[in-house]
């Protein structure tokens, strides 16, 4: 019998091998996520081409400061996330806790701004459905833009909520000082997920907020 190593599942030989398997598993999951968001992006481009006027009018109706602020907030959260991974690699417990908390805080700020935007759109009757109202020539077709807006930002926000949940799990483990330079795969792998969700927003920002702004 070999001596058991803390945190090593029985199907792996070493912690390193276990880490590699988890890493590749997350990349495989992210490849499926590319397809998931990619389908919506493809549909978005077709309808944007078909109803460009409505998409431009809908996009200008969104508040650009909120979109830009949220992009900056997410970029900062990716930065704090990577610093949390760095702290895990070097085994600094306080750094892990601090940077994980900062990432969770920024993720929550993002969701707060998103909630504010959604509230405004609900108030202005810009939610597709029976009560939809959009002044100007695009009363009907603007619904297509807002359908894409709510589907894309909604799915993205759901990923953010899951991300904050995963960070809570990491925070508990970091608090208990469970991460060591040899054993911190969870931080590394959940970090990949967090950065991916950031990348999705990097594309959502110009697609939703920056359509035909100059006119």
């Amino acid at each position: 019998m070999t001596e058991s190593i803390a945190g090593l599942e029985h199907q792996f030989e070493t912690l390193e091998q276990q880490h590699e398997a988890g890493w590749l598993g997350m990349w495989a999951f992210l490849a499926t996520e590319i397809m998931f968001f990619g389908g919506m992006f493809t549909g978005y481009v077709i309808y944007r081409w078909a109803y460009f006027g409505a998409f431009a009018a809908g996009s200008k109706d969104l508040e650009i400061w909120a979109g830009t602020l949220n992009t900056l907030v997410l970029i900062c959260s990716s930065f704090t996330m990577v610093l949390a991974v760095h702290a895990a690699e070097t085994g600094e417990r306080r750094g892990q806790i601090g940077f994980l908390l900062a990432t969770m805080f920024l993720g929550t700020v993002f969701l707060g701004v998103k909630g504010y935007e959604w509230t405004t759109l609900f108030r202005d009757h810009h939610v597709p459905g029976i009560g939809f109202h959009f002044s100007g020539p695009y009363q009907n077709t603007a619904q297509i833009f807002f359908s894409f807006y709510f589907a894309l930002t909604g799915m993205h926000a759901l990923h953010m909520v899951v991300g904050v949940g995963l960070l809570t799990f990491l925070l508990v483990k970091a608090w208990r000082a469970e991460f060591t330079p040899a054993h911190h795969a969870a931080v590394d792998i959940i970090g990949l997920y967090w950065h991916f969700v950031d990348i999705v927003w990097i594309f959502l920002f110009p697609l939703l907020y920056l359509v035909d702004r100059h006119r």
Partner: protein
Amino acid sequence: MSGVTVSRKTYAGVWGSLVVLTLLTAGIAYLDLGVLNPVAAITIAVIKMALVALFFMHLRYTRIRLTYVFTAAGLLWLALLMAFTWTDVITRHPIVPPPPWPANDVTSHMSIFKAK
């Protein structure tokens, strides 16, 4: 899973670049560049994606080469999905929109979305 610990300085540099690119893309959107507006927006987004993936997600540093196959597979399949959907949309017979839509506002300049 990088095998090397990247310096915080590198991360800070990437973070700074991402902030600058975000403000740049928001600024460029207010200039009238014609067809180059969406091109610029997507180009900047792709650069930002590359920065996040290469540095924050450690793609540049990983010693597990198989990761590149996984990433390439994801992007290749995305390209296939987009390319074949768009060729269909461009070349197939017109799709007639549902009844109330073209009557109230025919804002589409795309032939396939116009009623026969």
